[in-house]
């Protein structure tokens, strides 16, 4: 099982450039999430999706966009990259809550905006 796969693992962007972080999961999970991790700040939710065609903002959505056209894929789009978007980005997925629920994470993408 591949689980949650994120690409790329590392990326350097120039200010004003755009890019898409790819995320795909093969566990047929309903829920998918994008988090950013900054030192000393934990993980902050950017966007999440409860199923194909449904997305919603998290705590820090400004400067980002998402789409969920399939159950498997949940790409994160950065438009007009800014230095404040330098961070480590994690995609995660989960089933609806049950006794064994948990979030499964991708390996993360380290993004630097210069």
């Amino acid at each position, binding site marked *: 099982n591949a689980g949650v796969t994120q690409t790329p693992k590392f990326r350097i962007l120039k200010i004003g450039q755009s890019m898409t972080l790819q995320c795909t999961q093969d566990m047929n999970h309903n829920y998918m999430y994008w*988090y950013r991790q900054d030192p*000393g700040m934990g993980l902050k939710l950017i966007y*999440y999706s409860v199923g194909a065609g449904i997305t919603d903002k998290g705590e820090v959505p400004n400067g980002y966009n998402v789409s969920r056209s399939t159950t498997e894929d949940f790409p994160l789009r950065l438009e007009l990259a800014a230095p404040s978007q330098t961070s480590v980005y994690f995609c*995660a997925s*989960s089933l*609806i809550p049950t006794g064994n629920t948990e*979030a499964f994470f991708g*390996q*993360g993408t380290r993004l630097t905006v210069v």
Partner: protein
Amino acid sequence: AQTVTQSQPEMSVQEAETVTLSCTYDTSESDYYLFWYKQPPSRQMILVIRQEAYKQQNATENRFSVNFQKAAKSFSLKISDSQLGDAAMYFCAFLNYDTGNQFYFGTGTSLTVIP
């Protein structure tokens, strides 16, 4: 929004000793889940242990156990017989599906294991 607080940015423990990491949370819900995730230098987030709020019994997974105090909204992680491989960042997390099935994370505790 729910809040999760980890008041210990850094902790250290001697190898083979026991260490407890603290976590408190704030919610008005009665049904929810709590988790501890480990993040080693590889960046991979690994589930250590989970607790369902409606279960009074504290969860255990081998050397890892929790002290869940629902009334106090406290969820500490105890690591027994600490090993060098336990060195990592540990995150406490909260999940309540009534609020969109969002996982809320604390700011993390960096654990150092001293040989």
